[in-house]
């Protein structure tokens, strides 16, 4: 079916088709359209889920955990402070090896209250054991939400997946959307450790120093195994539905002398910058990182790298720049831009690339000549 939809509605449309048995969610701007659309689907019978309007985000994740361990599919959505409020339970979901899928509409943190796009919220969850993917178009939001369930539920993964979309820039923009006939793309969920009263076990009891670390390694092992699952899932999606994405979305990187690395909608707008720069004779390329966890292998050898961080780790630096620096042994020009929904246009991004100073960090709007 070919129509137009917002990022939020696209996520809700995907969830409707996947039909989780339990959805527990709490409203927060700019995620609200997702939960409202789901509530409407449930009310008019299009979606046969148990929809629990919980009293807080901490409870939303706790409810998802409770549902998920019985072996059913679950979903929730949140943003910003909601995500941070559920932080303890976000950790619990990954540690509990539960294939929960959550849409996070990236939004800045207060104070002051700011409802616009920033990645710090999900970046602060990067250590939790959740897989994380960042999308940049409405179509991608829909497709990736579908794929997220298949990846999370794969026997080699059994870890929760967070699908991130930029607040307002993507959650509220209308773009074209083609929905698919799912068929058996997402196999039925068989959670090996689901509660079974005929085979009673204790879940997550006191675990001593001689055992605990083994469970932590098990999470990491699955995180590494998920790389192949992500690849095979995306290949299968491409085979069936004709669209492919990859762990990074590379635009004109093959012969590039300089590559700009970023995530979300900025990563898509950066392609317009690349077109501009190429006309000027600058061989630039854009590498939009989609899967942040597990962190991908990036091909950045022999070129200048500009990293745009729509986030920050105070007293340290841009989180993506840090990952690129240490994982790829590159010396990026780190630009901090787009915090709190700060406007960053393709002209600005072209400027970052033209004026790059490898090894330095600039704050757009603060540092002179960024």
């Amino acid at each position, binding site marked *: 079916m070919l129509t137009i939809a917002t990022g939020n509605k696209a996520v809700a449309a995907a969830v409707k088709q996947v039909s989780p048995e339990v959805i527990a969610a709490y409203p927060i701007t700019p995620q609200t359209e997702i939960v409202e659309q789901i509530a409407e689907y449930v009310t008019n019978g299009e979606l046969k889920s148990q929809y629990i309007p919980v009293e807080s985000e901490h409870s939303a994740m706790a409810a998802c955990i409770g549902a998920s361990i019985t072996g059913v599919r679950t979903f929730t959505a949140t943003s910003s402070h909601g995500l941070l409020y559920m932080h303890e339970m976000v950790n619990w979901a990954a540690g509990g090896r539960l294939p929960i899928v959550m849409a996070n509409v990236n939004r800045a943190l207060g104070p002051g209250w700011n409802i616009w796009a920033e990645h710090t919220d999900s970046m602060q969850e990067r250590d939790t054991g959740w897989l994380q993917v960042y999308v940049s178009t409405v179509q991608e939001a829909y497709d990736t939400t579908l794929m997220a369930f298949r990846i999370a539920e794969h026997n080699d993964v059994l870890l929760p997946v967070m699908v991130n979309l930029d607040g307002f820039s993507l959650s509220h923009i*209308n773009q074209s959307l083609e929905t698919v006939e799912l068929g058996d793309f997402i196999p039925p969920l068989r959670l090996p450790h689901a509660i079974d009263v005929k085979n009673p076990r204790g879940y997550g009891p006191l675990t001593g120093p001689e055992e605990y670390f083994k469970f932590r390694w098990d999470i990491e092992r699955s995180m590494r195994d998920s790389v192949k699952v992500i690849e095979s899932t995306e290949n299968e999606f491409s085979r069936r539905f004709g669209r492919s994405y990859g762990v990074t979305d590379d635009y004109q990187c093959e012969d590039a002398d300089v590559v700009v690395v970023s995530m979300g909608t900025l990563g898509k*707008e950066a392609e317009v910058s690349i077109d501009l720069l190429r006309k000027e004779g600058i061989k630039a390329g854009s590498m939009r990182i989609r899967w942040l966890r597990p962190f991908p292998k990036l091909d950045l050898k022999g070129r200048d790298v500009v990293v745009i961080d729509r986030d920050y780790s105070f007293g340290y630096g841009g989180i993506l720049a840090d990952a690129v620096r240490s994982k790829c042994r590159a010396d990026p020009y780190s630009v901090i831009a787009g915090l709190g929904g700060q406007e960053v246009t393709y002209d600005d991004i072209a400027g970052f690339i033209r004026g790059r100073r490898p090894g330095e960090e600039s704050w757009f709007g603060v540092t002179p000549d960024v």
Partner: protein
Amino acid sequence: MYEIRIHSRGGQGGVTAAKLLALAAFRDHKYATAFPFYGAERRGAPVVSFVRIDESPIRVYSQIKKPDLIVVLDNSIMDVVDVLQGLKPGGEVLLNGTLPHDMKGFKTLSVDLTTIALRLNLVVAGSPILNTPVIGALAKMGIVSMDSAKLAISEMFSDDRNVKAAEAAYQELVL
């Protein structure tokens, strides 16, 4: 790329007008995006929505700084907002009804959307529906085809008075 900025007040349907326009352009087999700028707006406060239409995929998400067309659904907004800001040289303005106002030499068209809506009793919660007739006016201006405009309206609204309102606006707008 053709860029349109729509000014309205919260609750008047400006955001939906943007979506309708994008859907109509989409049915014309073009690429289109539509999005509002959300401030701390409440019902009655000025709201801005953006539409981009292009023959190739649109990868720009930032706000429209130099629109080709300004649409104003509520002329009283012009007392508090500079609706002409950034309008490209040669750009056009479409107003809801006439108003003596310095349009700074830009070509300005107007059609009385409010009267069209009231005539058809196209009113919800006390407010006349302006977003469906305005699409008819935009079709007359050639932004989208009238067939696609009517298709988009019927896809989003079941009440056929909406299509009638668009047709009336199409008839009444003098280019």
